[in-house]
């Protein structure tokens, strides 16, 4: 497949995905529609990890923090400066990017676990301090957070309950676009440089890749993606509070990203859906009666499942659900091809 034809296929796939996903929640009730939007928000979070950890190999346990910064920045822009929501989103993304670059600075010297600890520390600082302290009330809107009832986009008043579907379509569209860009990035020159850093930093630097530039870029872009998703949160939920963006969410994002396959973009979509829908589904349908026993599957069961699955998966399948699936298909195809070639050549090579 040539380069441009592969690109065309990808664009078509993205459009198709958009068309399908946009229509999907139409028939669902409002609760699930809310979940669908949330799924995309978290999908962005996992996508950011696909870039940072999957493509570049840098560990980060504070992605939800970046999303939170995006959310608060957007909320602040709308409530304090009364700008159109799109401008608020743009500002939020820039803010997240800047923070990402700052967080990336320690990454120049550290890697692996020590980097994980630093990002953990950052997440906690934001949790306890930046998102909660009075000193940052200008940013966070105080203890109540921002309310974005008056948000305007394209001149139309966006009210979370009335225009839920419209907001969703916009979100899904953006997600498909960013996903497309990321898949293209993966195969491009810059993407190769990122992957070179992941596979062997040593070789990358001695082969001319400027580690500083690319690592900081990776952190910035990753934070921006998470921030993009987060910036829509106020629109979806109507208000911003620190709770959705706390440390445990970052850990969950990391866990689900690894579970689904941190190197693959579709894993992000899967993960987002997983994170948003499963808890709600459990809450709604997760209790009832079987015979004499009543059962109640709550959110905690979800988290337990995530934890256990993560452990099992790391022990057995380091590539994630999607990655493993993809690998098996590729392997089977390769075997078939080489078998066919051997038969065609009429001889077998001695090992």
């Amino acid at each position, binding site marked *: 497949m040539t*380069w*441009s034809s592969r*690109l065309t296929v990808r664009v078509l796939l993205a459009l198709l995905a958009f068309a399908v996903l946009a229509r999907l929640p139409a028939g669902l009730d409002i609760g699930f529609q809310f979940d669908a939007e949330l799924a995309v928000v978290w999908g962005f979070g996992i996508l950011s990890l696909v870039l940072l950890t999957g493509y570049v190999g840098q560990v980060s346990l504070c992605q939800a923090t970046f999303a939170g910064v995006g959310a608060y920045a957007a909320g602040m822009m709308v409530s304090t400066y009364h700008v159109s929501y799109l401008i608020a989103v743009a500002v939020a993304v820039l803010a997240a990017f800047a923070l990402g670059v700052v967080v990336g600075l320690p990454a120049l010297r550290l890697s692996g676990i020590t980097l994980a600890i630093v990002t953990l520390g950052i997440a906690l600082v934001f949790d306890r301090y930046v998102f909660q302290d009075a000193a940052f009330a200008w940013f966070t809107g105080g203890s109540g957070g921002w309310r974005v009832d008056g948000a305007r986009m394209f001149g139309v008043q966006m009210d979370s309950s009335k225009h839920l579907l419209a907001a969703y379509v916009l979100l899904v569209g953006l997600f498909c676009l960013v996903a497309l*860009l*990321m898949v*293209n*990035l993966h195969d*491009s*020159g*810059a*993407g*190769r*440089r990122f*992957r*070179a850093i*992941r*596979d*062997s930093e*040593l*070789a*990358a*630097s*001695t*082969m*001319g*890749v*400027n*580690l500083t530039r690319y690592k900081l*870029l990776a952190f910035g872009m990753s934070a921006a993606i998470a921030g993009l998703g987060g910036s829509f949160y106020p629109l979806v939920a109507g208000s911003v509070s620190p709770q959705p963006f706390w440390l445990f969410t970052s850990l969950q994002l990391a866990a689900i990203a690894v579970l689904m396959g941190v190197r693959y973009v579709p894993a992000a979509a899967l993960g987002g859906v997983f994170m948003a829908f499963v808890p709600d589904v459990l809450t709604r349908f997760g209790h009832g009666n079987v015979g004499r026993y009543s059962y109640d599957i709550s959110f905690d069961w979800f988290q337990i499942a995530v934890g256990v699955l993560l452990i099992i998966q790391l022990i057995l399948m380091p590539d994630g659900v999607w990655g493993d699936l993809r690998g098996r298909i590729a392997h089977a195809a390769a075997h078939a091809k080489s078998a066919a070639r051997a038969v065609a050549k009429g001889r077998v090579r001695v090992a």
Partner: protein
Amino acid sequence: MLRVRDVTVRFGGIVALDGVSLDLNRGEILGLIGPNGAGKTTLFNCISGVIRPDQGSMFFEGRSLKFAPPHERARRGIARTFQNLQLWGSMTVQENLTVPMDALGGRNTFSDALHLPFSTYAERASSERARAILHVLELDDYARTLAGDLPAGIQRRVEIARALAGRPQLLLLDEPAAGLDARETGHLAELLHTVRERFHVSMLLVDHDMSLVLPVSDYVYVLDFGKVLAKGRPSAIQNDPKVIAAYLGDESSKESNKSRDVVAMPRRKDEAPLLEVKQLAAGYGHLEVIRDVNLAVRPGEVVACIGANGAGKTTTLRAISGMIRPRSGTVTFDGRDITGKTAEHISRQGLIHIPEGRGLFPNLSVEDTLRLVSNSIGKEPDLATAYRLFPKLKERRHQAVGTLSGGEQQMVALARAVLARPQLVMVDEMSQGLAPTVVRQLFDIIRMMRDEGIAVLIVEQFVDSALEVADRAYVFEHGTIGHSGSAAELRADRKLISGSYLGSAVDVVAASNGNGHHADPALMEVVSVKLPAKLKRTLEERAEREGRPTGAVVMELLEGVKRV
């Protein structure tokens, strides 16, 4: 082109490089050889910018390399390959090549992501150039294969191709023949010549395999203990007594120890072997390092394994002791099958392995380490015995093992071997990095162990000492056993031994005649400031011989030409 002056690198207490100076001229292939631990890779790391030297300076094309990070040095034209293969395994071979091309050609991330026309054009140009390079190195078939899936020999070539992709002026090759067999190594030697011709690149080559380095290099430096031991043309180096001593062991001690053999106790040749290895094959990941290895050790025997580095001696020992799992073959010890068992289990059976690097615990004190023997024998060991044999250890018994000198560390390892009362001890490169006097002491310990009835299997770089103490020996070559026989037989066959280590002089001469880079000063017609490398060397040597500055020799020659 490259000037290294007085570079010194220290890691904690160890001096890896000690005032090393080196010159490389444009168009040359410079060889760098030396025993294990001599500092070769450290020097590479300094030149490519991975490590900063503690002292000294380096100049490339007249510019200082100080403060230049690795990617900047790549930009200036220095590229390298790695001893332990640092390919980007998740990318195809072609992608591996395009990364340095792009990185050094300046590409824009955003235009890449959006697939702007500029990016697409640049992509096509890169992939074409990549394919051209792959063609020269005969890697066309592998262009689209994932680098991680390739066999080791091909991977090595890919590393070279990748290093060439950035259009370097200087190529640093770190052990490119490691893990290759004889055929592949010969192929590699030809390849390096082709590379120099086609890509106009100078090379600095490090390897253990003399059959690669000596024929290929124009000039050779020998490193030992972090210092430059000798430098000169390959043929000169081969016959240099200092080099031979460093590689083959101390010649002078041969005479005095000859008499010992006569007193040796006769061994019963027909006794059943204590250790029997049949058709052993093993390796790491994709690399298959040893195949079809057969050897045996009888009780109370001392058997030596000798051969060049990378020949498979260490891997064999590891496969026997359980450090790595054998791929096929069997290992029988004391009548029991121990193939594939855990190292703990095998160790408790009475087969002790002292690995390369001694297998000690840097943060434990000497006494604590020796006390660990209780795990092998089930009770507290009698430390007094150990201290009687190694009085030096008694002095230092509370010192952390990591801070001891190499010789003392080896004593700790051997002391443990004595205390654990095993049936067989395998020692890997006991004399590595040690002074000859210390080595002699250690070999006496081996003899003593033999007298106590403990069988010993030693792997050694120092052929002479090894053959003195051993009853029999196996010669490893390229992953399997080439020759074997009693120590006496092998000792007599000197040519065999130096041949397999340093390559024969005949080979070197034959190869250099085929180079095409003759230097005939008498025929010098063109006067230019930049002289061909070989020419420069010849003039330098002549100047040294005659005790005059090189310039004077050049002027004299020029006068001669003008008059004609």
